[in-house]
Every structure is written in C-alpha cells, then in structure tokens.
C-alpha cells in the first residue's frame, strides 16, 4: 500500500497515472472528491458560512427591514461544534439499535460531508443526523423499516426522516461508498499478528485501545484530510508505538511515521464530544439566526412556497400551450408521410410532465 504517497492534496482528479497503476482506493469517490487540506477545509467552511449569513440576512431584512442588525449569526467554528455534537449522538443511537460499526461510521461521514455543502442555519443537524443514519443503514446493506426506525426515536415522524433524504443524497453527490479507518485497522491487526516481535501479552488491550482512538477520530476532521490507512496506523501508534513502527518497518514504509504525528495530535485534541454548555449556547443562538425560509409556517417560508408554486404553474401552463400548439399545427392528415416532428414534440412535452 502506498501509504507514504497518500499525502493530502487538493487534486480533484486522480492524477494522470494510467488506470492500471492506480490503487483501488485512489479510484474511489472518497479519494477524488472528499479529501481536503486543512486550509481548504477551513476555507470551504468559511465561505459556506459567509454565503449563508448574507443570504439569511437578506431574507430577514425582507421580512422586517432593519431587524437583521440585532442578529448574531453563527460562525464556521460554531457550526462545526454543533455538527460535532450530533456526530457523537450517532453513536448513542447506533448503540440503541445495535447497528453494526459500518453503519455508525458511514452515518458520521455523511453528516460531516453534508455540512461541507450546507449550513446548520438552513438545516438543523439533529434532523440531518437522523436521516443520514437512516440512509446509512441502507447503503451499508443493513436496512430497517422507516416505521420501526422512527418508533424508537421520540418526537420524530417518518416524514421528518424522508423529507431530507433526497437533499442529503444530493449533498453527498450520490456518493454513498465510504472507506473507513476501522476496516483498515482490522487489516493492520491481521498483519501485525505475523510480525516476529508481536507481543505475547496485552494484545487485546492494544487492539481495543486503538479502536477507541478510531472512534474518537470520527469526531475530528481526520477522515476529510487523511487516508483511512493512515488514520488506522496513527490509532495503532497511539495504542502501541512500537507495534506501529514495527509494522511500518515490515512494509518498508517508515516514511509514513511523521505523517502520523499530526493525526495523533488531531485525535488527542479534537476527539472528545464537545462541552454541552458551549453547544447549548450555540443552539440557543441558532434559534434566532436560522433561515426563516426553512421554518415551516413562517412568512418567508410561505413566500418562498408561493413563489415556487407560481413558477411551477407557469411551467405547466407553458407545457400545455406547447402541446396545444403542436396539436393545432400538425395536420392529422398531411404530416404522417413527411416526418414525425409533430409527434415528437408532443412526446417531449409529455415526457417531462411527471418529473
């Protein structure tokens, strides 16, 4: 495995290497679309936050002019804090449902990826988390019925979950496959057992500790910056530095070791659930600065719905007009021999109707 070469970079495309030389991981959508440098990550979040703030400010102003100056909007770090809290809630829910680790890890990745395309001021992470987890049960081949799912979650109806499913799938770019560090750790674990200096005692503890670091890493940005194999090795190194180094030696990949330090640092620094008091304050302020267009029943919400309905009605009218025109223009006796333009136009107009 080309551990050492998997340094984060911003390449969207998997370089110019010929297809047969590319590793399977490098061909994945995760490698191609969901890897950032720490700077890119900060930049993405900052510009997303700025765009959201200015859009919501305009909406609020439209509702009652001058009122937006009293609102303190969330900044990117505060948004991130709130998302982090709900990543930690996934673990609780998965424990309750006894979902496999893949489902839990995938839901966490979905939630984090979602907020690289959206802002918590539009979509509250509580709802997004519930839908992301439901979607993850399906993409990880562990489906349960929606009724059963929501019956175990207080104050949640099936439509709360379904309403966001499309939005989340879209935000993920319909890229459902996620490569997880806990899988890589399992691979490492199988590998290290055949090393000569594999310890005879305390081995269960080494693995369990490494796995707990993997779980902590889900609360961090590690998976958006580093390869799953790098994160796994870093977690093994946190648990047993000698074993991790021995493994790297056995693969002639010692040059990966310096990369591990920044991952270890990140997990140690960011790998615990956020302070509930701090998050409560953010959530309280979110109530005041969330996008009114997304609040069902609000003036802005109704205005937007109205606007959408008008646009849809116009589109329908336009289509009906097109159909009528083609019907009128095409002579039922004259055109059959020369071409089928008339039929096709009717067809095309009809096709989009149920979209």
């Amino acid at each position, binding site marked *: 495995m080309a551990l050492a070469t998997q340094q984060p970079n911003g390449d969207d495309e998997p370089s110019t290497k010929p297809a047969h030389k590319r590793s399977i991981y490098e061909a994945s959508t995760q490698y191609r679309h969901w890897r950032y440098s720490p700077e890119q990550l900060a930049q993405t979040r900052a510009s997303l936050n700025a765009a959201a703030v200015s859009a919501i400010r305009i909406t609020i102003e439209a509702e009652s002019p001058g009122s937006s100056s009293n609102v303190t909007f969330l900044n990117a770090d505060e948004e991130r804090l709130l998302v982090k809290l709900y990543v930690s809630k996934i673990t609780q829910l998965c424990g309750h449902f006894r979902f496999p680790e893949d489902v839990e890890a995938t839901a966490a990745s979905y939630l984090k990826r979602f907020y690289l*395309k959206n802002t918590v001021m539009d979509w509250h992470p509580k709802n997004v988390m519930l839908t992301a987890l439901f*979607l993850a049960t399906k993409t990880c*081949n562990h489906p349960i019925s*929606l*009724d059963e799912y929501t019956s175990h979650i207080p104050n949640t109806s099936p439509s709360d979950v379904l309403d966001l499913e499309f939005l989340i*799938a*879209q935000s993920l770019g*319909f890229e*459902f496959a996620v490569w997880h560090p806990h899988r890589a750790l399992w691979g490492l674990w199988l590998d290290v057992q055949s090393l000569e200096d594999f310890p005879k005692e305390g081995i269960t503890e080494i693995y369990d500790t490494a796995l707990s670091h993997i779980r902590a890493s889900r609360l961090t940005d590690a998976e958006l910056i580093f390869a799953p194999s790098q994160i796994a090795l870093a977690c093994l190194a946190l648990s047993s530095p000698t074993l991790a180094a021995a493994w790297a030696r056995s693969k002639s990949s010692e040059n990966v070791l310096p990369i591990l330090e920044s991952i270890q640092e990140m997990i140690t620094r960011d790998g615990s659930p956020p302070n509930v008091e701090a998050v409560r304050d953010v959530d309280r302020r979110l109530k005041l600065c969330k996008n009114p267009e997304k609040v069902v029943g609000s003036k802005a919400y109704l205005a937007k719905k109205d606007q959408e309905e008008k646009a849809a009605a116009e589109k329908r009218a336009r289509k009906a007009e097109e159909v009528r025109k083609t019907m009128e223009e095409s002579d039922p006796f004259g055109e059959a021999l020369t071409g089928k333009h008339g039929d096709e136009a009717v067809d095309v107009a009809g*096709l989009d109707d149920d979209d």
Partner: protein
Amino acid sequence: MDTVEKANLERQRKWAKVKKVGEGAYAVVYQGREVATGRKVAIKKIKVGQFKDGLDMSAVREVKYLRELHHQNVIELLDVFSSKTNLNLVLEWLEADLEKIIKDRSLVFLPSDIKSWAVMTFRGLEFCHRNFVLHRDLKPNNLLIAADGQLKIADFGLARDFADPGYKMTCQVITLWYRPPELLFGSRHYSSAVDIWSVGCIFAELMLRTPYLPGESDIDQLKTIFRALGTPTEDDWPGHTKLPDYMPVGQFPKMPLRDLFTAATADCLNLLSKCLIYEPRKRVSARDALHHPYFFALPNPTHPSKLPKISTQASSHPHEDTDGNVEMDELGPGVRALPPNKLKRKLSSADEGRRPLARRLDFSQSSLGSP
C-alpha cells in the same frame, strides 16, 4: 435557491429525455441525450415517491457501486440527479444485450466470437471482484452490448460488498437458471464463486444458443444441474449435505461435457468445467479464468467491433457481420503477403489496410496481458 439544489438543477439541465424505451415495476427507462454534445444516453428514472421507506435498496445499491466502478466492461453511470420525487440515473447508451443476440437465430457465432464475449465478461467481473463487489444477478440480459461491440456488465441492483467471514448474506439472489447449487442449498456464507457459476452458465449458453440449465423451481433447478453435471459426492463437494436447505434430489451419473458441447475445443471445455465445479472454493476465480489457456489459444477473440450484432440494426447490410469476420481473415494474410516494395510505394493505404489487424492484436494483448 440552495447551492445543493442549484447544483442538482445544473446537472438535470445537462441531459434531455427523448423517448420512453421501457417501463418496469419501479423505473422508467428513456432514451436521452447529453444537451451539450448530442451524445445518446439512457436515463433510468426511479420513482422514489411511491416507496414507504424512501430510496429503495436496489436504487441505493446501483448508485453506490456504479459511482465507484469505472471499467470498460462495466456500464458507466454518467450522472445522477433528482427531479421532484424521482431519482434519475444517466447511463451510457447500450444498443443490445447478450440475450437478444443469443436468441437472434439469423446470427452465426464463431468460436472466436464466443471467446470475445467470454473474455469481456471475465474482465468486467474480475474488476468487480477486485473491488470487493459481488454482482449476484449475472445473466445474458444483464450483459449489455455497446455500439462498438464492447460488453458491459449492468444492473447492480442486487450487488453487495463481500461480507466479512461469519457474516450472513441472503441466498435469495441470482436468477434461478444461473444460480449456483450452494445458494439452492441455502448457503448463507458464500463468495465471488457464485458469480463465476453464473458466467459458466452464460458461457455454455453462448455455445448452445439456449439456456443450459433451465429449471422450473428450486428443486427442479438442482435436478437439472445434477442431470447435466452428475450428482455431487462428498468427495466432489465436502460438507454440502450439511447446508441449511440440503435435500437429496436423486442420483444422476456424470456425463462428459463433450457429449453436449460437441464442437468446443478441449481448452474451452476445461474452462467451462472449472466455472461449474461444485465445491465453491475450487471454482475458478475471474482472475485465474483470464489466465486460462483457452484465452491464449487460437483463434484469438474477435475484435468487439467485428462481433455479430442483432440483425434489426444490420438490416440494411444483412451480411455485415460475416463480412466483418471474412474481411479480417482476408486482411491478415493480405497484409503479410504485401511485397516490401508495395509497402514503400503506397505507404498510406497499406497502413490503412493493416489497422484492423493491429487493433486485433492489441485487443488480445490488453485482454490477456493485464486482466
């Protein structure tokens, strides 16, 4: 409008539906085109609104795997977008499927044609298995044929990742006639070998021009298999009588494959028999199949562009396909017979004449050298 919605709308506008070409239980298929280029595509519209549990599993599976798998012999998912409550998959346009070609009695298959379809199937499948994906529904009408003759594995609605050892999977997969005996016996732990059995059945069907093992029920399927290949003994397949749904369905003697496949070469039958080994662990892998002597022996596989095509498309040139093959055969010696001075005098035309042969050699190299 939200950024995400905007991006979706932009995607949607890249594609236009032209006409409906098929309708299934949960999806409508349209012929469409890429607006910018006019390129022909297929748009599979999945009606999601009707599902109580949202996006359904087959759509999720298809999108999940096709988003990741990019290979010449796997159908290309070009784009995904949603429209209201529908999910739209934009797929490359493929003219025909192998079932239609097999059933077209006006077509004659040469041994090199069968070898070509077989190698493309194995290449696509090897790629899936290398990516830890089980297809679980291989059959001739899921092997689609592009306009250039390339075969593409399609329909990943039943696909899944390899399970970890000890993790149970459902045995209710794969269309009956292509389903391996371990699934018929209710095995909940299985491997990529299930897909290989299906390929074996398809391989046989290409030679017979009719389904090889057409059973009518689960039990009849087992009988049909055993009638063709002999009832397995404990030696053939250790432990199979302990499988969950095992039941004795009668003793049938082993018949040599040669009795049925009279025209096949020894290499060909050897590969076929390795796809149809009862013991799943001994069944050939897609990777090993690609290294089988059958693919190195003459005749070379037909170049995809020269393969038989369904005759409705070739109606204006009824003998186009045979012409293609004949032309190849003539060009081969023809190029070799060219005297050197002629090559010098008419370099450009000689080059043109050589191109089909060069392509043919390329094809066999790329299919065998780097599976």
